[in-house]
């Protein structure tokens, strides 16, 4: 894909400013939407484009929008999920810091389609620079007539708030995000009801990821058919892949959905660091099952990765070479999820601590042979048995590394320690 859509302004000096963005075609799609399209036509275009949510779940965006009841009087809201916290994920930050107006334009068009007059960008607390740039971009856009009352002389108006999180991973779960926005602890809600009918302040609410909303202007400007021509059937459009770990050139790469892992790693990310061997990849963030070097030709899209037993997730590709201890990786991530559990559901709250202790035992030479199957048993006792998808996500690092690298766990138990790390060289 020669032409960049989401990263087109990244790297241009002053890309975060309105004048730079305008000079490069910013807000043209909003002008077009307001002058030429009815709100329902915008939703139809997003549906036809095949756009699927870029936050992790891959749910069709237009369909999500259509769940908002049309006949309910009173306010409705749009929340942009900018609580980018899945380990390995750093793609939304690139848009937020470098092209905040692209996101704001996407939000404005989406709110027009949904008849929303108030939107919230929930940005993770650590992104202080991003929050500052968004605030400034909102001020610029309001002064320029692209946000605020009577946008571009139309009857459509929109107030956008930037709301900072405060260091909680679970607030990236959409209903926890709503609770947090309401000033409460970030405890996920029981669904149904879904936010489309009962969301923020009990009102109909749409929650979309930063990258998802940033795709919307290009769909309006170039048409849904154009968008659908990028990528593969059912997996359309450009995707940001955030590559980290053992590669020569880590970073965010914009490529069509369906690009192979091989092309991403070896043509774009410069290959495995130091010319070492590829051992394992988490293709969509730390909660997607690991795949191995034999999967290097898999296509990076929702359906191909599901067929390979893993998931596209957030598109965060974490690369591990042959010096990596998979038990140690699983331990570090299980510890992370245990720390971030909100504590509402017993399986997640209690089970993750137990899994962490078992993994710590195996990694530090105190593991028993039966611990490996006990870990799998605990994983199946947590997955699918919690209010929110956190339980499912949290067990994936341990579960999938046991499935793919069981012999590594067994050799830890047999040799009473980590064969890949000398004493005192623990990385996690």
């Amino acid at each position: 894909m020669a032409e960049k859509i989401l990263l087109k302004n990244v790297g241009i000096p002053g890309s975060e400013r309105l004048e730079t963005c305008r000079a490069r075609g910013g807000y043209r799609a909003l002008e077009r939407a307001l002058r030429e399209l009815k709100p329902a036509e915008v939703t139809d275009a997003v549906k036809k484009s095949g756009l699927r949510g870029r936050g992790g779940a891959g749910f069709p965006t237009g369909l999500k929008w259509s769940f908002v009841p049309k006949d309910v009087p009173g306010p409705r809201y749009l929340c942009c999920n900018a609580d980018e916290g899945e380990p390995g994920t750093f793609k939304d930050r690139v848009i937020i810091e470098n092209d905040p107006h692209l996101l704001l334009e996407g939000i404005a068009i989406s709110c027009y389609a949904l008849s929303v007059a108030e939107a919230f960008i929930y940005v993770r607390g650590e992104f202080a620079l991003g929050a500052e740039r968004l605030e400034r971009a909102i001020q610029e856009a309001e002064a320029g007539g692209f946000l605020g009352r009577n946008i571009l002389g139309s009857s459509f108006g929109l107030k956008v708030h930037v709301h900072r999180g405060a260091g909680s991973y679970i607030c990236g779960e959409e209903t926890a995000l709503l609770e947090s926005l309401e000033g409460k602890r970030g405890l996920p809600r029981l669904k149904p009801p879904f936010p489309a009918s009962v969301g923020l302040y009990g009102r109909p609410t749409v929650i979309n990821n930063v990258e998802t909303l940033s795709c919307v202007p290009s769909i309006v400007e170039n048409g849904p058919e154009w968008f659908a021509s990028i990528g593969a059937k059912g997996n359309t459009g450009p995707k940001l892949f955030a590559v980290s770990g053992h590669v020569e050139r880590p970073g965010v790469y914009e490529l069509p959905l369906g690009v192979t892992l091989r092309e991403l790693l070896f043509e774009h990310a410069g290959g495995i660091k130091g010319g070492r061997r590829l051992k394992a990849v988490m293709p969509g963030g730390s909660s997607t099952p690991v795949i191995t070097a034999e999967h290097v030709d898999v296509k990076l899209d929702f359906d191909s990765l599901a067929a390979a037993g893993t998931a596209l997730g957030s598109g965060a590709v974490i690369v591990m070479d042959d010096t990596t201890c998979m038990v140690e990786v699983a331990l570090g991530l299980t510890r992370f999820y245990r720390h971030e559990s909100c504590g509402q559901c017993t399986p997640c709250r209690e089970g993750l601590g137990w899994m962490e202790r078992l993994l710590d035992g195996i990694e530090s030479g105190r593991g028993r042979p039966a611990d490996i199957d006990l870990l799998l048993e605990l994983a199946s006792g947590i997955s699918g048995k919690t209010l929110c998808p956190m339980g499912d996500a949290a067990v994936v690092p341990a579960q999938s590394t046991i499935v793919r690298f069981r012999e590594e766990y067994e050799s830890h138990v047999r040799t009473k320690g980590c064969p890949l790390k000398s004493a005192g060289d623990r990385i996690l």
Partner: protein
Amino acid sequence: MAETTERKFSEEVRSEAERIVFSYGVKESAVLPLLHIAQREFGCVDGEVVELVARTLGISPTRVAETASFYTMFSPAPLGKHVIQVCTNVSCSLLGSESIVRYLETRLGVVRGRTRPDGLVTLSTVECLGSCGTAPVMAANGTYYENLTTEKVESILRELGL
């Protein structure tokens, strides 16, 4: 009973807080923004800060306290003058964040998770900072420093006067 001094926002901060409360249609939504301001102003969110935020919003202190205690960015005890947070999650650890933490522990004379007795610096390990493409990463007083090496860490510490 011990005498307590009631905490107050300065005039300037008070009007900033009022602007924020006013901008939300539902005042409870201003809890997190106000706690951020309070953490910035007082260096912690202790019982008195909770009282102050509750008074500013006209809601119960318990309501503010239960929210504040959920979020790691609000510290119940005062932090050091400088706060150094090193990411030790997967991408950073693959690229050696542990050696960065160890270097900082030795160089600063404080173990992770603690504030040095002189109150000058707090060292902590934190979860993914969302900067994995430039790992290892740390935040010093909220500013990100990326692609860390021990040499780079040393020059950052000197810049901070540590």
